[in-house]
């Protein structure tokens, strides 16, 4: 396993595959969607070998459906396991969500009701995945447009409980916190302050779109000013962690993405300096 990255990275998407190898930008890490590399062979896997030689690698899954009431998808897990064994990534992450029931797949990250039953269920499944992969995984909070009457606890408590019970780490998507806070009327800062800093191992940053109804998590625009501010609050409250800029639709030039990553790196550098000033070794 490679060393966990310390700085900022970008989510690598198909339009930039060739360019990133040609330019070799200095990045603390590169994150890819695990499922995009489930191929048996071919140039995608060859590309990932080369990317891995340039910077630390993070495998970010979108299809494991950790929260589903269906049995764990054995075939999917086997593909993920093969990928993890071959590439020995620095980070492996998934989402605190579900995407399938009765074998029907939405292929999207659907929110869970924040119930004690869901905590127990998803924590057990994360445990099974961690046993299988023989490593700790990171689990990410997702955006949601609905607040469920069934929920028995606030989202931050749900997230913390799942991590505490399963032993997983948290991938805190700062944009998703902001989107959910605005849409469901809670204090984004309070959400962050409620988390155990020891559990948080990575941050995600992405763009959203403001609509008359509320915020929509689009990953199709630059990181919003409020999200940068919330990121700084997270860095001060929870501490510096590897931070990743995601852009999944209307993907811009690599330069635009690298500029966003530089901004994240700069915020991380400030936080690291502040941390050093406050507690000299």
């Amino acid at each position, binding site marked *: 396993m490679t060393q966990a990255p310390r700085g900022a990275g970008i989510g690598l998407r*198909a339009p930039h595959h060739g360019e990133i190898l040609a330019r070799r930008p200095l990045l603390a890490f590169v994150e890819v969607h695990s*499922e*995009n590399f*489930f*191929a*048996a*062979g*071919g*140039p*995608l*896997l*060859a590309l990932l070998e080369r990317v891995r030689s340039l910077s630390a690698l993070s495998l970010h899954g979108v*299809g*494991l*459906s950790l929260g*589903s*009431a269906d049995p764990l*998808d054995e075939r*999917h897990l086997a*593909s993920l396991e093969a990928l993890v064994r071959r590439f020995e990534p620095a980070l492996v992450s998934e989402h605190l969500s*579900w*995407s*399938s*029931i*009765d*074998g*029907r*797949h*939405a*292929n*999207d990250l*659907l929110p*869970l*009701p924040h*119930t004690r*039953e*869901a905590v127990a*269920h998803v924590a057990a499944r994360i445990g099974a995945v961690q046993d299988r992969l023989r490593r700790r995984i990171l689990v990410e909070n997702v955006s949601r*447009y*609905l607040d469920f009457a*069934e929920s028995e606890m606030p989202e931050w408590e749900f997230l913390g409980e799942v991590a505490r019970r399963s032993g997983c780490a948290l991938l805190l998507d700062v944009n998703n916190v902001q989107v959910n806070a605005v*849409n469901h009327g809670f204090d984004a800062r309070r959400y962050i302050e409620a988390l155990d800093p020891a559990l948080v191992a990575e941050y995600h940053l992405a763009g959203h779109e403001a*609509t008359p*109804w*509320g915020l*929509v998590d689009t990953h199709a625009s630059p990181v919003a000013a409020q999200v940068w501010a919330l990121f700084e609050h997270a860095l001060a409250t929870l501490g510096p962690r590897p931070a990743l800029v995601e852009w999944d*639709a209307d993907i811009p030039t690599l330069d635009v993405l690298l500029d966003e990553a530089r901004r994240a790196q700069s915020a991380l550098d400030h936080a690291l300096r502040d941390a050093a000033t406050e507690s000299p070794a």
Partner: protein
Amino acid sequence: MSALAAWQRAFMEALEDEHEGTASDAPLGFHRASVRARRRDALAATYPIVARLLGRGPFDALAARYARAHPSHSANLDLYGDLFAAFLARQSEADATPCLPDVARLEWACHESFRAADAPALEAAALAAVPSELQGRVRLVLHPSVRVLESAYPIAAIRERAGCDGGPLHAAAGGERVLVHRAGGEVRVRALSDFECRLLRALLRGAALEEVAAALGDEAAASLAPALARLVLEQAIAAFTVAADRA
């Protein structure tokens, strides 16, 4: 456990229950829109030529109909769209542009070929080293990325033209037999002669070279060796075995 399952079942039904006028209503509509976009994008990534030939609006409408007719059966979106060509053949778009289903078949073959397992290419010298008395018993193993298609339309030419400039299509008359395979990290598509197509079909069946030659008839004497040499050069052949004497 059962409460969560029942809850998810109800949520999935609400998600899939799209009616005119309510499908994009907030807030469930945002989840619906996201699901729709992921499927549409996956289909457009696998079928870029069909998408280009139809144009954005008609392709999106077709993608929405496909999603309803063939719900996604895997968490891996690479597998989404496996039934698209057959579905397309039953749609009005195929009445207007009859080559579309076969173009879709070609694109699915390319999609599979791109992701097929790796294998070393066969060295011509290794094959030449087989003693001549055993040559007939050689069984060639095609590269895992090899796909062979036959169409009543010039699908390789259509793919090439639509892929280059997206300009208006002047489909030449006549069908094509097509080889799809991967070499040098790229998917390659080329038209095959009738002889080459029958040769590849025989190799795909696992026939030994003496059986291949017999199946190909008189033409084999002159054409088999050069056709095989070309396939070796193109890296479409991965290995060979030499069968033991049959009882």
